[in-house]
């Protein structure tokens, strides 16, 4: 704090009289000039303080033996006991590994899918066909995972399409849902099927912002469709892609309980038991709020560290989230 002088901007007009004056002045001048920006953001700040930070303070129960009947003030403090409980849970590393593996698959395959689909849509010249297909692609997003899970089980059953096709080639029936080597592929593919159309919307909005005259100019220069995609479409989408990627990274270990829960069977526990399904057993079935909060904190810290790293990298090229 005492060294603020080093950080002074060259254009500062006032001369420092006290230690903090220059600092204060710079902000005060800015606030006076752009006061409206500060007023605008006020509702947002209040929202985040009241509905996010205030309840977030309740995370202290991760360091307590929280008893709902007593409340936070009367529950006893146990230090890091809850974290010890998690890290000594015999299947913890299995669960963590499963979570990270599936998360990685989803990032590698699931994340680019809507980008590719958006580019494919961009190549469709017939306006009506484009609109109709976009509208169809976004339908599955509205089906819950219970319904989609049922469809997946049915498609992959002995009577399902895949085994029917195997039958045509004289191959044996495979019960895909109870063989663990297929589980992760099923999770990734069903996830893409359900949400790819939905995820595309945002990229289509980005593409919509491109001026058609850019393409015309490119055609004049002799660029084919592929080159246009590489040099015009993708660069325009890039800021959106980057932001979405960073936000994804921040929630890296959160896979979404519903999907996994509805696809999991005891025969695929060894590859599909993830943090959220464990939290369900410990939290919902046993009401161990302190333990589940501790797990949540652990997930968040990992996510935050990853985001920090990637955000630094992002800032070198374009811009980061902050």
């Amino acid at each position, binding site marked *: 704090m005492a060294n603020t002088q080093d950080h002074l901007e060259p254009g500062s007009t006032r001369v420092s009289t006290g230690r903090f004056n220059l600092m204060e002045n710079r902000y005060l001048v800015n606030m006076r000039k752009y006061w409206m920006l500060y007023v605008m953001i006020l509702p947002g700040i209040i929202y985040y303080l009241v509905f996010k930070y205030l309840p977030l303070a*309740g995370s202290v129960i991760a360091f307590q033996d929280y008893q709902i009947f007593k*409340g936070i003030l009367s529950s006893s403090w146990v230090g890091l006991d809850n974290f010890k409980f998690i890290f000594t849970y015999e299947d913890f590393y299995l669960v963590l590994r499963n979570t990270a593996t599936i998360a990685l698959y989803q990032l590698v395959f699931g994340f680019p899918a809507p980008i590719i689909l958006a580019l494919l849509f961009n190549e469709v010249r017939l306006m009506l066909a484009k609109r109709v297909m976009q509208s169809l692609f976004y339908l599955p997003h509205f089906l819950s995972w219970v319904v989609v899970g*049922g469809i997946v089980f049915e498609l992959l059953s002995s009577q399902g399409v895949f085994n029917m096709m195997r039958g045509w080639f004289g191959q044996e029936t495979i019960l895909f849902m109870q063989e663990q080597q297929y589980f992760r592929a099923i999770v990734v593919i069903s996830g893409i099927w359900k949400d790819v159309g939905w995820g595309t919307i945002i990229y289509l909005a980005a593409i919509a912002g491109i001026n058609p005259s850019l393409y015309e100019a490119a055609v004049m220069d002799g660029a084919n469709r592929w080159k246009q995609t590489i040099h015009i479409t993708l660069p325009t989408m890039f800021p959106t892609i980057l932001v979405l990627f960073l936000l994804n990274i921040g929630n890296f270990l959160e896979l979404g309980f519903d999907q996994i829960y509805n696809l999991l069977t005891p025969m695929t526990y060894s590859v599909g038991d993830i943090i959220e399904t464990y939290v369900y057993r410990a939290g919902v079935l046993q009401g161990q709020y302190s333990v589940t909060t501790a797990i949540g904190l652990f997930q968040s810290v990992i996510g935050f560290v990853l985001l920090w790293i990637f955000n630094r990298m992002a800032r070198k090229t374009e811009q980061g989230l902050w």
Partner: protein
Amino acid sequence: MMKHVFGKSARVSALVSLLVVSILSGCTGNGEKPAASVNDAEKNMPVTVKVFKSHMGVGTIPGKDNEHVKYVEEKTGVVYELMTTAPGSEPTEFLNLMIASDDLPDILRPIGGIEQTLIKQGGALALDDLLPKYAPNVWKNIPEEAWDIVRSASPDGHIYYVPKVFLVPERAPMIRQDWLDKVGLSVPKTTEEYKEVLRAFRDKDPNGNGKADELPTSGREFGKWMDHLFGMYGVAMWEGVPEWDIYEGEIQYAGVTKNMKAAIAYIRELYEEKLLDNETFLNKGDVWQAKINNNLVGSWYHLPANLRERYTAMLKGAPDAYVVGMPVPKAEGFEGFVTQKSMGEPEWMIPTAAKDKAEYSLKLLDFFYDQSNDEFIRFGIEGQQHEVVNGKKVILPPEDSRPIALGMRNLTTKEDMDVRIKETIPEDMQKMVQDVFAVSTSDARRIAGDGLPNTVYEGFPDIQSHKLFQEYLTKIVIGEWPIEKFEEFVDRWNKAGGEAVTKRVQEWYAKVKE
């Protein structure tokens, strides 16, 4: 516009400081609130009692002027105010939130072990003296044995809740008589004969459609609803979940006994020969039900009281379909039975905070346990809960626009079940259903672990959720692992907390036996 936002935020920010305090303190819980309506009672006004019951399904919450509420009020002087969970919510979580915000009802139906949270933290009212005084019908209609189990579930031996009592077995092994006739066999008496029957079902096209699509027997995901296959080996099973019973002279987890090992070995053989539906562990409820409806399954385990819809569907494809109860086939060296859990599950309890209203809460409860009110409890009000067709009262299906009627009785005797069958099953199916019940009743046995409080699992979520068991069961049965892996399971189960849980259960059982 700015001004508006600003004004709002000022108000909000003033609230923030208040909030911090209240959230930190949570609730003090056991602080007794003065009950204003008790004063009303002294003026001979009806007392309002808030009743919480989850899973009420569709329908509106009846108001004060609802006829059902009025009728109950006339009889008891108590106006009931129903509170329920939203569909799809987790009732345990809902109750936890009620506790956390100090917002408990006057009488509630606990779920998911919440009763133990309340008992342990001093939030439950002891009912030992109040019950005989204010709820004589509840007190005398529930057998003494059930009260003993309730006493054993609390550390100080008091009665903290009214238990659910179900004196008939709800579930039964069933088999298709018409299939047996077609393959020329009779109801199997031993596990070997059962296997023979299943083989005949598999090979001899008993559904007569010319395709080998029969699934001799089938169950559901997680090993649910195939308890008949475990029951033959004396394994206490409840919807695919191993229970606690006496093995080798001591109460034990049925999942780790040699009975279980024998049962799994047998089931594995059935699976290998395709006598057990090879997709049994992948069957969601609706898929399993469709298989039975479509005349694909020969033998299964379920609730006979639900047979009606299944049977109606079967008749479409197989006009001579007939279902009978199957006595548990005898396995060499084992004593088979149909697992029955009859009592001990908590049904109603009163929070300490609602102590002042306990008298009225119990009076309300007593109304439902008074047999002279049976007719009203079953049928309710005409036009709301039933309609009269050809002079007979017919219960209406639940609907969003109709009010829900409170029911509090959860005591089912043989007589109750008979009446229910008469009222809910068409005449031409009644005998079939009664016969199925008769068979399962003669095989049924109450297990030693009936009424075990789930506090024994505290700190061991994986033991409570039977995750380890399910993984080993399914992988051994589908042939991915050899049966020898069972020993590994027993070992891992014990180390993962099973040993500690077993000790707690044995201590509990010693208390019950006293």
